[in-house]
């Protein structure tokens, strides 16, 4: 296959003993050889979102055409990854979180069964950014996913029968669940959402057998709750000390302190560690929570069996701008200043791409990838983000032109790693904002935010874009600008392609080496989902994407919010009103393949 040929070309000089750097690669244990399936939203433990299939490639992608569609029956943000196990495709709708099983055998597109967990409709009112769902995950014959009213369900992948269903939180206290679980051995890891409601964040390991709780680690509070003990060995001194999750908060504020776990979890089998990010502290108004607010806005490495923390790093201590640090941590091995290092790479909301040693938590590099004026860099000696002192907002006055804005340089929408190119493909925003902190009250079940924001495009006037990043050379290889922020995930393939979608509903394939657009298709509604690609039972490679505008950014369209109020949708009202004329609510699965 072509990809093997390319890889051989790479490895040949190395084998012959020449002074040739080894390419950046995902460890094979975390990212096994291609099997034609896509069984978890991030594709593999390493979160590469890379498929080794190359039937669809840069030469023939222009012929790509739709094979079938499935209506989800819902009309708000579709963030679910369509995952494929054998001959069945699975996806989860936003509220009411119906799990679809779609038969891929001819005639493809028949819905085999649906599972409806019947979540409480009131829970939608506790979802900050629509009652979305980022997808199901598969392990050992069972599909696991979360519901908006804080249940985790396990459904038999073949029959659609419920195996177990457990309640993990209280939506009446602002907790919801939107993230996609990850399964390691006999544990399924799930986390809550709700930092905009003062929910206290946690990650929970459930036993796959019966859904019983194996352990739960909070993101705030005393060390016993955070699961920190003698084995905790962070790289930087500011994370060492007793009960920092209590002392770095005003009295009792950690109880409503956020740090929810609604993003991606990755896993390194070699070290037996899971990595995940914790969200912003609550409320957004930083003056109400002096201190570094441990352990919010950081990354934890934990033992999956015991839940005990190994190391931690905080991207945005004492968060000023809702820079919720839940983005994907891509597990890679990389040549770094003459040595081979085990790292995770994290394109972070605050505008820096971090390269972090995944054995210790040391930050090797933090390079800006958008225009930033709120911070001046990351001090690699102390690991601390360097804030610009004049850019400290105060209650009751407006801080103008803060870049990047609250959704950040890149929100949850996951990037992909090209195993063939060694590049990262990153969807991103180019946004700035005005930000006015206000007084706010914690009233259980209502938002706990305390900021009036107003978003607008950053320098250049475009809302976002998509770029390829070389993690070794630490620079952009190519970049595409887009009118709107790119809120869809990315998927890369051995065929030299990267797939992503835009908010106008165009699903695109671009050349992974140059960024040149090779194919596009209008799906009818804005795309905020995650593309996947896999081999169908007929042996052909397919590409799938959910289309359906919504989420935080798209609620202007899906809920027909009023753009005359610039603070609508917590700031998007100021710039997303025009999108209402371009796209419309939707909720459809689209599947593409080459013609026979």
């Amino acid at each position, binding site marked *: 296959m072509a990809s093997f040929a390319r890889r051989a070309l790479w490895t040949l000089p190395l084998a012959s003993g020449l002074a040739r750097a080894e390419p950046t690669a995902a460890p094979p244990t975390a990212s096994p050889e291609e099997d034609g399936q896509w069984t978890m939203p991030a594709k593999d433990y390493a979160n590469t979102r890379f498929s080794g299939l190359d039937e669809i490639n840069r030469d023939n992608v222009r012929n790509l055409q739709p094979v079938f569609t499935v209506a989800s029956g819902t009309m708000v943000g579709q963030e679910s990854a369509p995952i494929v196990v054998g001959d069945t495709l699975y996806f989860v709708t936003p509220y009411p979180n119906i799990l679809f099983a779609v038969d891929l055998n001819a005639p493809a597109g028949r819905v085999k069964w649906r599972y409806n967990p019947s979540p409480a409709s009131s829970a939608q009112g506790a979802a900050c950014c629509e009652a979305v769902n980022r997808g199901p995950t598969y392990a050992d014959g069972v599909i696991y996913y979360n519901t908006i009213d804080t249940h985790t369900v396990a459904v038999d992948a073949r029959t659609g029968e419920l195996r177990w269903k457990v309640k993990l939180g209280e939506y009446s206290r602002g907790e919801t669940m939107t993230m996609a679980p990850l399964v390691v051995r006999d544990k399924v890891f799930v986390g809550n959402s709700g930092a905009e409601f003062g929910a206290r964040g946690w990650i929970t390991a459930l036993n796959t057998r019966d859904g019983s709780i194996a352990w739960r680690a909070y993101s705030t509070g005393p060390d016993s709750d955070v699961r920190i003990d003698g084995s905790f060995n962070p790289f930087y001194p500011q994370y060492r000390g007793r009960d920092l999750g209590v002392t770095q908060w005003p009295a009792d504020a950690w109880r409503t302190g956020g740090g929810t776990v609604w993003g991606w979890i990755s896993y390194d089998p070699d070290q037996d560690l899971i990595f995940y990010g914790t969200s912003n502290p609550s409320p957004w108004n930083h003056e109400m929570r002096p201190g570094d607010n441990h352990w919010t806005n950081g990354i934890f490495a934990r033992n999956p069996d015991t839940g005990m923390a190994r190391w931690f790093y905080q991207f945005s201590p004492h968060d000023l701008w809702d820079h919720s640090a839940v983005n994907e941590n891509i597990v890679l091995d990389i040549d770094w200043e003459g040595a081979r290092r085990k790292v995770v790479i994290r394109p972070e909301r605050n505008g820096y791409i971090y390269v972090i040693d995944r054995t210790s938590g040391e930050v090797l590099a933090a390079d800006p990838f958008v225009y930033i004026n709120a911070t001046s860099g990351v001090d690699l000696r102390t690991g601390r983000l360097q804030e610009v002192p004049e850019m400290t907002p105060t209650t009751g006055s407006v801080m103008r032109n803060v870049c990047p804005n609250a959704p950040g340089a890149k929100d949850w929408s996951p990037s992909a790693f090209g195993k063939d190119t060694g590049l990262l493909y990153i969807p991103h925003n180019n946004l700035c904002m005005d930000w006015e902190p206000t007084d706010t009250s914690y009233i259980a079940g209502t938002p706990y935010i305390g900021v009036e924001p107003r978003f607008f495009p950053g320098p250049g006037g475009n809302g976002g874009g998509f770029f390829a990043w070389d993690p070794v050379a630490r620079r952009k290889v190519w970049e595409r600008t887009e009118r709107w922020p790119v809120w869809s995930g990315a998927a890369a393939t051995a065929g030299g392609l990267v797939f992503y979608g835009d908010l106008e509903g165009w699903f695109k394939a671009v050349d992974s080496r140059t960024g040149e657009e090779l194919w596009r298709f209008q799906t009818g509604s804005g795309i905020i989902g995650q593309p996947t690609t896999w081999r169908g039972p007929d042996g052909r490679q397919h590409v799938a994407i959910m289309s359906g505008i919504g989420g935080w950014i798209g609620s202007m369209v899906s*809920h027909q919010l009023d753009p005359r109020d610039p603070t609508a949708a917590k700031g998007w009202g100021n710039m997303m009103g025009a999108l209402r004329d371009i796209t419309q609510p939707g909720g459809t699965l689209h599947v593409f393949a080459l013609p026979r």
Partner: protein
Amino acid sequence: MWWRALLLSASFMLAAAVLVHYRKDREYATGEAAQAMPVQGIVMSGIIAGGGQTTPRRNPYSDDGYDLGEGRRLYRAYNCNGCHANGGGGIGPALMDERWIYGAEPENIFAAIMEGRPNGMPSFRNRIPEAQAWQIVAYVRSLSGLVSTTAAPGRADQIRGTTPPGMTTRQEPVPSGPPQQP
């Protein structure tokens, strides 16, 4: 001259009429009348089994600048703005447009605040006094220009940048049906 006398007396009469009509003794201790009223649920339909007597309750606070101002303060104090922003909406629907899922009458909005709504609006029953709820109702209606412009505030502060209620053109309410859900 006779026309001067006429003009003078006419202006006096006009002033007197204005005083009689618009002068209101302000009751800062927000209305005993509303406070004392127990709420037994709100009737949203005119069809009542047994023909029960239902006079829709009128908002006692809709035409007073003080109450609108208090409504605005409470709208923020009770986190209404967390979901509905400054009328443009977010987690909850927009309040400044013409679409009303559950009705635009004061009693409909009052019921939404007190009883909640099934798609996420929480109930504030027993949490906020009725008089304050009515003040919030008045403010909410002012966002789409449904209150007297003589009472609505003429400016909007700071970042918000929305048209102040006093300058909002009236958005004629349109019942919009239930939110789009399967």
